[in-house]
C-alpha cells in the first residue's frame, strides 16, 4: 500500500496530500483504494475497453482480467505446440474475433504458412470476406506488417502468426495499440522459448475430448483454456465449450484451478 502511495505521489503531489488526509476514516478507504487502483492502471497504460464490445460472452474467464472485462486495444499472446492444439488455438482466436468484430469490423490475418480454411469462419459468425489474409515469406515481414496493421484504426482486430518475437518488438506493438485501440492476437506456434512479452495476457489453448456419455459422435468443440499470465489480473484455467450460442462453461467449480496470483504492483 505504501509503495503504491509512494509511486502515485511521485506523479501527483496533490493526490498524495489528499490520500494522507482521508486515509484515517474507514468509510473512505475502499473509495480511496479504487482511486489509487485507477491511477496505477493509468501508469500501467491499462484502459477500460469500450462498452459496446466489453461483453464477449467469456463469463468467468473475463473475471480474471482487471475490471472483469476482456482488454481490447491490447496485444494478447497465444502459445501452442502441436498441430491439433494450433487448430484449437486458431478456433478460440476466431471465436473471440467473431465476438469482437460483430457486424462491421474487419480483420487482418498475417502469417507465413497459413492453413486457415476460409469457409470454416462462418461457424464462428464471421463473414470470411471481412478477413483479409496476408501471406508473407519472412517472419521479419510478418512483424512489420502486424505493427503497421495495429496502427490502422479502421481495423478491429489483427491476428498475427509468428513464433519468435523479442520483448522489445512486443513493446513496439503495445505502443502501436495504445495509439489506435486495435486488438492484436499473436499466435506463437512452437516458439523456441516462452520469453516474456509486453502483452496483456498469455493464453494456452488445448483441445479436450468430447465426453458425452449418451450421445454418439463428436460434439461441440471443447477447449482447455489456460490464462498463464495476465497483467493486473489473476491467471487461471477453465474448460469451455463452443456452441452456436457462444462460450459455455463446463462445471467451473471442478475445473477452475487457481494458479498462484502474481503481484503486479
Amino acid at each position, binding site marked *: 500500500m505504501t509503495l503504491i502511495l509512494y509511486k502515485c505521489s511521485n506523479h501527483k503531489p496533490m493526490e498524495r496530500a489528499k490520500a494522507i488526509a482521508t486515509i484515517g476514516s474507514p468509510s473512505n478507504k475502499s473509495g480511496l483504494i479504487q482511486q489509487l487502483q485507477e491511477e496505477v492502471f493509468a501508469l500501467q497504460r491499462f484502459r477500460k475497453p469500450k462498452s459496446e464490445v466489453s461483453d464477449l460472452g467469456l463469463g468467468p474467464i473475463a473475471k480474471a482480467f482487471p475490471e472483469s472485462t476482456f482488454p481490447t486495444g491490447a496485444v494478447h499472446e497465444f502459445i501452442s505446440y502441436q498441430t491439433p492444439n494450433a487448430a484449437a488455438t486458431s478456433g478460440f482466436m476466431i471465436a473471440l474475433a467473431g465476438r469482437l468484430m460483430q457486424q462491421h469490423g474487419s480483420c487482418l490475418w498475417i502469417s507465413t504458412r497459413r492453413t486457415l480454411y476460409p*469457409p*470454416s469462419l462462418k461457424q464462428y459468425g464471421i*463473414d470470411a*470476406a471481412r478477413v483479409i489474409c496476408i501471406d508473407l515469406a519472412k517472419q521479419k*515481414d510478418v512483424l512489420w506488417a502486424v505493427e*503497421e496493421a495495429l496502427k490502422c484504426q*479502421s481495423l478491429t482486430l489483427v491476428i498475427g502468426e509468428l513464433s519468435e518475437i523479442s520483448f522489445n518488438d512486443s513493446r513496439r506493438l503495445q505502443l502501436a495499440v495504445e495509439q489506435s485501440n486495435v486488438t492484436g492476437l499473436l499466435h506463437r506456434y512452437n516458439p523456441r522459448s516462452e520469453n516474456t512479452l509486453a502483452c496483456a495476457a498469455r493464453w494456452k489453448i488445448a483441445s479436450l*475430448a468430447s465426453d458425452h456419455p449418451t450421445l454418439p459422435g463428436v460434439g461441440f468443440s471443447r477447449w482447455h483454456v489456460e490464462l498463464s499470465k495476465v497483467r493486473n489480473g489473476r491467471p487461471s484455467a477453465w474448460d469451455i465449450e463452443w456452441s452456436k450460442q457462444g462460450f459455455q462453461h463446463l462445471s467451473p467449480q471442478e475445473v477452475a484451478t487457481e494458479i498462484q496470483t502474481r503481484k503486479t504492483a
Partner: protein
Amino acid sequence: MSKRFVSIWFRHLTTDWLTRRRPELKDVPFVFAAPERGRMVVKAVNPIAAASGISTGMVVADGRAILPSLQVFDDQHGKDITLLTALAEWCIRYTPIAAIDPPDGLILDASGCTHLWEGEVPYLKDLLGRLKAFGYTVRPGMADTVGCAWAIARYGHLNPVIEPGGQVEALKLLPPAALRLDTATTDRLEKLGLTEIGKFMTMPRSALRRRFGQTLLSQLDKALGQEIEMLTPVKPIEAFLERLPSLEPVRTATAIEYALRELLDKLCKRLTAEEKGLRKAVFKCYRIDNIIQSIDIGTARASRNAAHLFKLFEIKIGQIMPALGIELFVLEAPVVEPLSSNQEAIWNFSYNRQKELAELLDRIAVKVGMHTIHRYLPDEHHWPERSYKEAKSLEEEATTTWQSELPRPVHLLRDPELIDVTVAMPDYPPILFKHKGNLHRIKKADGPERIEQEWWIEQGLYRDYYCVEDEKGARYWVFRLGHYRSHEPKWFIHGFFA
C-alpha cells in the same frame, strides 16, 4: 503579328492509308465503296483508278465496267476523321495549333513557327516531304487566312505560298468553289457567268446578299481576312506528369524526398481539380550521366492523398542511386481513375475506414508485393478446395452465402496427406490411423459426408469425409477416396478441427 495558316489537302486520304498498310496494292486500281439506296457507291478512289476515269459517287458496277480489274473494299465510316486526327496530332511538331478540316484536309496555324525552319518555303518543304514519305498525296497552301490557304491548296496553280496581304490577287482567278460554298450556290454563280472569284469580288455587297445569301459574303470575307475564322485545335490528352529540374545536381536523400513532396503536391492538386485519383505512379530521376533511375508504386484504389502516396514512395526511395547527381525529377501517373469528391463528403465515415484500410494494404503491397494479399468470397462448389474464390478487389461483394450447416475444419492442408488406417468394416470410420509416425486411436467419429467430384471440372473419385476425434481430444478431418468394391481405397487426412 500577322497570322499565317497552312492548309493541307489529302487528295486520296483513305486509299493512301490502305496502300501504306498493304504495299502490294500500290499498282492495283481499287476503291472504297459503301451501300447507298441498295447500290454500292464508290466513296474513295486511289490514283490509278482515278486515272481510268472512276470517280467518287459512281456505282461500283459502272466502275467495274470501265475497269474489270478494279478491287473494291468496304468503306469504314469515320475512318477519315480518325486518320485526320492522328495526322493533326502528328503535325503538332510543326505548330501548337493544328485542326482537322473534314473530309480531307488539315489546317495548321503556322504563325511564328516558320522561322524555326528558316522560312516558310523550307517549312512547307519539310512538312510535305515527311507526309509524302508516309505515302500520302498532299497539296499545300499557305496564306494569311484559312479560307485563302484552303483555296490555294485545292485550286491553286503555281506557288503554294501566298505573300502576306496577297489574298485578293491570289483568289482573283480561282473558281467560286474555292470559297467553300455549297454546290447550289456555285451552280448558280456559274450559270450567271461568274466563273472566277474576281468577277464578283468587287460587286456591291447588298446585291450579292440578295441573290446568294449571307453565306457567300461571309465566306468571301473569311477568305480575304475581313472576318476572323476560329479553329478548333486537336488536343492530345495531357498526361498526368510533373517535372522538377534542379539547379544543381542533387545527391542526398533529403533533397530527393523534398523533390518528391513538391511533385506529389502539384500532381495531387491537379488530380483534385479534375476529380481523379491515381492507381499507378512512376517517379523518375534523370542523372547527369544520362541514366534514368525510376521507382513506381501502385494503389489498391484511386488515391490523391499526397501524404499517403509519399509514404508508399518512401519505402522505395532507398533504391535510387544518385551517383554523381540528379538533375531532373519527373513524376508521372500512367493510370488514373475518376474519384469524385462528393462521395468522400457523403460517405465520410465508411469511406474513411475503407480508405485507411486501402492505404494500409498499399503500404504492404509496395513492400512485399500485391500477390501476398488475399480476400476470399464464397463460391458455389461443395468440393472443399473450390468452395471459396479469391476476391478481385477490396469492394467486391459475395454473390452467394457461406455454407454453415456442415462442420468444416479451421486448418485445411493444401494437399491431403496419405494416412495408414485400420477400419473395422467398409463405410465405417477408421479405428486408428497413423499420420507422420504418430498413432491416433479414434474414440468418436461423425460421418460419412460424401462429396462427389465435379465431373465437369475434373474427373476423379468421390470422397467420404469423417470427422474423427482421438483419445486426446484432437479432431481431424479424414476422408476415403473412392469405394471398396474393386480395390483397397486410400485414406487421407485433410484438415484439423478446432
